[in-house]
């Protein structure tokens, strides 16, 4: 039988190549090899094959082992995706560490221009990742010549520390004349932050408190260039808002620093999958709107935009404004040694003003937020 012969031959060749033949056997085989070109070719071919098989086995075994080692380390908590790292505890810990070290050295070395890269769609693992997406921006830093980029941004003299890597961005708004700002926790992927006001002025800020569960965070402007306003032209609503109420928002979804106005209505009293901490709103929300305030017609903040439903364009979710008060309370407890964190008493709305007038007043209190490491 031909096949049987082939099998026997293969066995002999393999034995020969593996060096398992005795000296006399090997010598005998080599003389057959010399006389029979077909067998010689088979030996060469099989040698080549075994070599490839060896390489294959070596890589396959190594991949398997190293993947296992990786998984063991991962499960032991050696690393986590950056998005998962910024738990409340960690943010606070980082902040207190960072607070001691420096009040952010202002560095003006080189001209660093910022530009927002592709609006990376970011799915938070703690939310239902496949169906909602958070609206923060992914930002990249590159060093570019001022003349090339200068016309895009007027923030060439950046207040970012040298070598800082911008990680994320979004919007935020002032809740106190002393410079306290509310934004989403997921906007702050780094442990440092700068805020940029409506006219493009950069101000240094620190992260005071972040609650990843509610997705709210508190920042404070710590920049001497910050001009404290006398009062704030809007208020924060404590009660819930009625269905169908007309709403509008102001935020920084664009790559430049232009504030953008959007209008819509309150479409449900609960958020994604019945989340009672949130509203569902009908508004066109783009990445970058995360942390933007939502106002009603009385210039009361009723919520903070944080996510949008992936499938349905125009459907977004907002954290109820009452959560701001809860956040401040938690922050005050946490910061017992600190000068108290608070919401301004000087909040008042110019009732006589129309929408345009209201927005004109408000926009100076809404900030473009960037977070870095």
């Amino acid at each position, binding site marked *: 039988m031909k*096949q049987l012969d*082939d*099998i026997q031959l*293969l*066995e002999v060749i393999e034995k020969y190549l593996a060096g398992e033949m005795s000296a006399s056997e090997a010598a005998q085989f080599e003389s057959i090899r010399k006389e029979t070109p077909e067998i010689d070719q088979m030996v060469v*071919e*099989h040698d080549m*094959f075994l070599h*490839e*098989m*060896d*390489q*294959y*086995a*070596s*890589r*396959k*075994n*190594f*991949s398997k*082992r*190293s*993947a296992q*080692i*990786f998984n063991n*380390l991962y499960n032991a908590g*050696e*690393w*986590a*995706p*950056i998005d998962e790292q910024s738990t409340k505890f960690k943010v606070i810990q980082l902040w207190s560490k960072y607070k001691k070290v420096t009040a952010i050295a202002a560095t003006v070395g080189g001209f660093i221009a910022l530009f927002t*890269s*592709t609006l*990376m769609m970011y799915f938070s693992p703690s939310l239902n990742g496949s169906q909602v997406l958070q609206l923060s921006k*992914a930002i*990249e*830093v*590159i060093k570019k010549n001022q003349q090339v980029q200068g016309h895009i941004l007027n923030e060439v003299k950046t207040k970012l520390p040298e*070598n800082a*890597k911008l*990680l994320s961005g979004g919007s935020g708004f002032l809740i106190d004349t002393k410079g306290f700002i509310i934004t989403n926790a997921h906007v702050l992927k780094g442990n440092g932050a700068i805020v940029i006001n409506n006219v493009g002025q950069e101000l240094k800020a620190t992260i005071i408190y972040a609650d990843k569960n509610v997705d709210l965070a508190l920042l404070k402007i710590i920049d001497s260039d910050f001009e404290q306003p006398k009062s704030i032209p809007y208020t924060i609503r404590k009660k819930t808002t009625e269905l169908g109420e007309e709403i509008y928002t102001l935020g920084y979804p664009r790559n430049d620093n232009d504030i953008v106005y959007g209008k819509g209505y309150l479409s449900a009293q609960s958020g994604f999958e019945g989340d009672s901490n949130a509203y569902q709103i009908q508004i066109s929300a783009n990445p970058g709107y995360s942390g933007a305030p939502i106002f009603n017609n009385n210039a009361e903040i009723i919520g903070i935009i944080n996510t949008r439903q992936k499938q349905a364009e125009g459907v977004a979710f907002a954290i109820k404004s009452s959560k701001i008060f809860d956040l401040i309370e938690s922050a005050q407890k946490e910061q017992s040694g600190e000068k108290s964190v608070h919401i301004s008493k000087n909040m008042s709305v110019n009732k006589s003003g129309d929408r345009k007038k209201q927005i004109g007043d408000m926009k100076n209190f809404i900030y473009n937020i960037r977070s870095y490491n």
Partner: protein
Amino acid sequence: MILKFSKKIISNQIGLLLPYLSINILKAEYNEIALLKGLANNDSKAVETLYKNHFSTIQHFIENNNGSFDDARDVFQEAMITLYEKVQNESFTLTCQIKTYLFSICKHLWLKRLQQIGKYSSPLSAQEESISVEADMEAFEKKDAAFAIMDRALNSLGEPCKSLLEGYYLNKKGMQELAAEFGYTNSDNAKNQKYKCLMRLKKLFFSQYNIGD
């Protein structure tokens, strides 16, 4: 840093190694050499150390350049394989620190992937220094092609051939053990089956391999 060592020497006892090594050390740190030696000898501790020391840099790099954690894991894994196969070589040279080498490979791989999916739009932002790894990547890609062919061939064999051959060639099990595992009455029957499978595998492999070259 330049270091060289031949494989024969690596496979010696580690304790004996240092005085006898034909290493041409200019600025090499002993740690790095030991680590590479461990990697070449399939020491899990070395692999673990490499992950611990270098993965987070790559994680940050990838995540700051349009990638996810999983992307970082995959790219780093490939870089580890590249380094592993490099140190398997009879005489290999590493002209930089392990850190720089791994980063350079990862950067190369990630750039390529971004270009493939059409997401590459600007210079990658990175603070780590990197070296040119073109030559190494070329060798790696060649091996990659052969690996893919073998993988496809093995997977299209069907059972029991696939498991039998994997047991013999990958897991280095003896015929007797395999006979027992697969339920052959004796090891000769198992061996016979193995050779039948092997012939099929070779046919599949070479039909692709020759085209590939």
